[in-house]
């Protein structure tokens, strides 16, 4: 049987407005990142010298067996843990130079998280959940709610704006979580098994949305053990024993790089 599938051609997509960043500068850069736990005979290397850049418009999936360092990578990338050595650079800023408050502010301003169990605040509606990070950032309640409703409308979810999490399906909650992750000027979304609690069709809809957000100008890193969801990414990175052992580009990403290389 011969397989003859036409190749996908990339099409230019509009970008979200965002804070200026030098052209081609990665939104996230991990430089020689290492994380060890314990010392001496009990020393465990969770990550060993990881180098990874994620650019605007790019969705990167991280795969690997249990204990390969996937979640550690995501935790360090989001500034939720501190590396043993190496650097995490978000939108051009090395977070090790920022101090605790500075990292917290950068996280709030630039990084969105999506978790397997959604982590929406139960006492807030969908719109209020999305508005909350903006309100914490000093944006007026009125403006933040307006932005939240606009984000929901863009994602065809306006009809659930006033629902509380327990009045939403899992898929709706995860879509609200993605909207919250990317509200305002935030361009980096870090997703840890975002489809883990969803059935196959809903999981796919969530991935399509994440893919769309990246096509519109966000940058995403997603940890998953599901090849079917990883396949929505531009690049799939394989981790083993704390190191990147391999990575794939999609044909579309390949041809984009070929065009860039030719210029």
């Amino acid at each position, binding site marked *: *049987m*011969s*397989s*003859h*599938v*036409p*190749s*996908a051609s990339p099409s230019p997509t509009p970008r979200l407005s965002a804070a200026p960043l030098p052209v081609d500068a990665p939104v996230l850069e991990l430089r020689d990142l290492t994380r060890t736990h314990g010392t001496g005979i009990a020393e465990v290397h969770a990550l060993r010298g990881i180098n990874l850049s994620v650019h605007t418009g790019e969705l990167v999936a991280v*795969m690997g*067996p249990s204990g390969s360092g996937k979640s550690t990578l995501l935790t360090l990338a989001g500034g939720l843990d501190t590396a043993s050595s190496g650097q995490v650079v978000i939108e051009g800023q090395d977070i090790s130079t920022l101090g605790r408050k500075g990292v917290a502010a950068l996280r709030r301003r630039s990084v969105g998280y999506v978790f397997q169990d959604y982590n929406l605040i139960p006492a807030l509606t969908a719109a209020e959940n999305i508005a909350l990070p903006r309100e914490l950032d000093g944006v007026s309640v009125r403006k933040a709610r307006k932005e939240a409703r606009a984000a929901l409308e863009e994602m065809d979810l306006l009809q659930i704006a006033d629902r509380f999490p327990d009045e939403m399906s899992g898929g709706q909650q995860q879509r609200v979580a993605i909207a919250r992750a990317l509200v305002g000027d935030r361009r980096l979304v870090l997703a840890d098994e975002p489809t883990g609690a969803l059935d196959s069709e809903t999981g796919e809809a969530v991935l*399509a949305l994440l*893919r769309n957000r990246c096509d519109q100008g966000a940058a995403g890193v997603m940890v998953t*053990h599901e*090849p*079917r969801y*990883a*396949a*929505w*990414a*531009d690049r*799939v990175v*394989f981790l083993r024993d704390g190191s990147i*052992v*391999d990575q*794939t*580009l*999609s*044909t*579309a990403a390949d041809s984009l790089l070929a065009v860039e290389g030719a210029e």
Partner: protein
Amino acid sequence: MSIRHGLLALLERGPRYGSQLRTEFESRTGSTWPLNVGQVYTTLSRLERDGMVVQDGEDDQGHALYSITDGGRAELRSWFETPVDRSNPPRDELAIKLAMAVGAPGVDIRAVIQSQRHHTVKAMQDYTRLKAQALADVPANRDEVAWLLVLEQLIFQAEAEARWLDHCESRLVRLAEAAATDPEPETRTTSRAPARTPARPRPRR
């Protein structure tokens, strides 16, 4: 792959000529399994020999038209009603390759697995991109719906392969760990046979 039944299914919608059947077959399956027109005419003549189609005049451009017979319709119905046989799996090169790689001198089986996983996941990325394009607009006709189903079949098949590769790798790691920690087995005078040998599927020759 049953070209024979594919052609009968297309002919059930009305008389058609050879190259038209080829075009319609390929539209329905997104050119995933391209046919050459020679295969189409060879299959048509066998179907004609077996009484499942007949030549049925010509169209305005002089193309010889074929029509399905009652015998062909019965064959087609039976094809739809009968599950595809899975008891004689076709030879799978990857399964054979991994089976041969176990314990082969100088072969890093984890590297063999990763190389295949890379290829399989990349194919899935390409299929998924095509699927996203196919879903961007609601499929408007039966060819587009059929193409979507074929694409999803390719994705599911590749996913099964990727999962199996993950499983093989973790199985090998566990076995290697067990071999490293287990004491040396005592020399046995008789070989130990498994309590019960499950029936294996017979491979297709």
